[in-house]
């Protein structure tokens, strides 16, 4: 038996079997959603991939409320865990990450994660390294209700010496195969382009591991750039990537993935990302003031994402919309408030 983080497969099954799966209006404020569904000590699945469709608005609200001893589960991420790590570095008594189950924490073209270095090199967080496929396959196992999933990579890697994977001889071929334990976070936090009031989600661009993550988790909070009519959603049933009964809360948050990329709507805001990342790097090198100022301005100094966006020059917002090369969303729907 292994120690399960989040829910064990049997607990996850029991939880879902008892859950209200009705098709009901799940709109609420982001404050309320975080109060209800994110608890101290939770295993939190962070949706998106590196800095694309990161659930930044949800993470900022978690930070404003303060949550401790979180386990973060993700394949690759940048902004989401960086913001949580920054909050922890500034005031560990208010926000803290206890553990990370992950494959990659950095910002690709925008640089490494200063706070991954800060947290790990000071031994402030427990690590469990996996590959991107491993984390995705673990969530897939969770989403389809099986306790483990066989996988071929990374057999031969040192990752297997410190994570909970097991290598067995395949009972059918006789060759070694790796078994990954399912992942069942307590809550998945996911940003999408479009959702309806019931929680059906239509994503643009890569789906990353968001559908699996939502369906594996006990709860899911969805923020969306646009809330759309249910009838518009169901015009294309096979474009629904996350089904309503997997979702607990839906909040319309335009620019909820800013300063990251949201396919079809806005590209990376390099300037803002560099400002944040630069402040993180200064903290790592011993000067917390710029990061404290950043949080006071953009997170603690605002109530929500709208107020954050109000602090960004309009020209900068227009620029990230103009350079976004993803396919634009369909326009033939009524936008709901």
């Amino acid at each position: 038996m292994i120690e399960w983080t989040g829910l064990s497969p049997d607990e996850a099954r029991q939880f879902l079997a008892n859950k209200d799966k009705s098709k009901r209006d799940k709109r609420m404020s982001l404050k309320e959603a975080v109060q209800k569904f994110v608890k101290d000590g939770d295993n939190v699945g962070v949706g998106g991939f590196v800095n694309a469709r990161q659930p930044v608005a949800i993470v900022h609200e978690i930070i404003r409320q303060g949550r401790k001893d979180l386990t973060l589960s993700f394949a690759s991420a940048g902004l989401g865990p960086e913001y949580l790590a920054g909050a922890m570095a500034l005031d560990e008594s208010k926000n803290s990450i206890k553990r990370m189950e992950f494959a990659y924490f950095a910002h690709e073209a925008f640089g490494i994660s200063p706070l991954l270095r800060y947290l790990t090199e000071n031994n402030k967080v427990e690590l469990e390294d996996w590959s991107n496929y491993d984390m995705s396959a673990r969530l897939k196992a969770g989403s389809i209700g099986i306790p483990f999933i066989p996988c071929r990579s990374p057999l031969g890697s040192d990752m297997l010496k410190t994570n909970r994977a097991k290598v067995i001889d395949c009972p059918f071929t006789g060759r070694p195969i790796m078994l990954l334990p399912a992942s069942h976070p307590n809550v998945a936090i996911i940003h999408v382009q479009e959702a309806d009031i019931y929680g059906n989600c239509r994503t643009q661009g890569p789906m990353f591991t968001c559908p699996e993550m939502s369906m594996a988790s006990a709860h899911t909070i969805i923020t969306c750039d646009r809330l759309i009519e249910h009838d518009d959603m169901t015009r294309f049933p096979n474009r629904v990537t996350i089904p309503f009964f997997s979702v607990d809360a839906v909040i319309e948050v335009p620019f909820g993935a800013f300063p990251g990329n949201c396919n079809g709507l806005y590209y990376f805001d390099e300037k803002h990302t560099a400002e944040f990342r630069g402040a993180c790097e200064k903290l790592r090198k011993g000067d917390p003031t710029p990061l404290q100022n950043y949080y006071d301005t953009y997170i603690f100094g605002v109530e929500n994402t709208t107020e954050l966006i109000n602090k960004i020059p309009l020209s900068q917002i227009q620029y990230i919309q103009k350079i976004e090369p993803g396919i634009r969303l369909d326009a033939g729907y009524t936008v709901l408030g």
Partner: protein
Amino acid sequence: MANYSEDFTPQEMIVVAGSKTLIDNKVVFAGTGLPMVAITLAQLTHGPGIVPVFEAGAVGPELSRGLPLSVGGSRTTYKANYLLGLNSAFELTQRGFCDFGFIGGAEIDPYGNLNSTMMGRFPEDYQKPKTRLPGSGGASDMACSCERTIIIMVHEPRRFAEKISYITSPGYLDGSPNARWRAGLVGQGPYRVITTKAVMGFDDETKRMKLIATMPGETVNSVQDATGFKLIIPDDVYEFEPPTVEEVRLIREVIDPQGYFVRKKIKE
């Protein structure tokens, strides 16, 4: 006689060598950074039929909307032929749909095993490493299950070590006969290592790294001096041809005019 560039940088040389290593009409699973630049260059020159795959889900997109800054960014998805998510992309590698994986790392050993996880003692210092690196991402998955792997590295003695801190992405493991097969792997392993100083491959018998070509301005000795282990030096080592003026122009003016990946350090 080709019109060779006279002011190319070592990184541009890597990109051009990487591009030339790619074969038209093959499926190439691309890691972030210089591999994306090299694939784009290959598509613009000899390999218009190369099918790029990005781990966030995009298969066979056109890379004509600007250099992707992320393997999950919007620029990887333009006119993609197939677009799901991470599981579907990695499932393709296991099934055998991906001919080449194209990755980098911070450290490499003679058998092509790569480290992109941590520097320091492992496993003792795993939870408090001397230097923590970003982690595997999808590199280890590509190294395991793409049919062959092409590796891009900065060529420094400390990065080419007989023993590396941590094996993130498996190469030929300990080099023993059929080591990969016995470990349960399906891909054939590393094919080429392309650096600022040389192009290398692996000996069929011992699976140790062998020199194939030196980059312009380098010699067998200068390459060996920059390598922290003994390279196999065959008799037929040749000098790799320099980039052409046109290749350098494409990199600077068309593919990465802002210098996101080409003028920066390759990987920390």
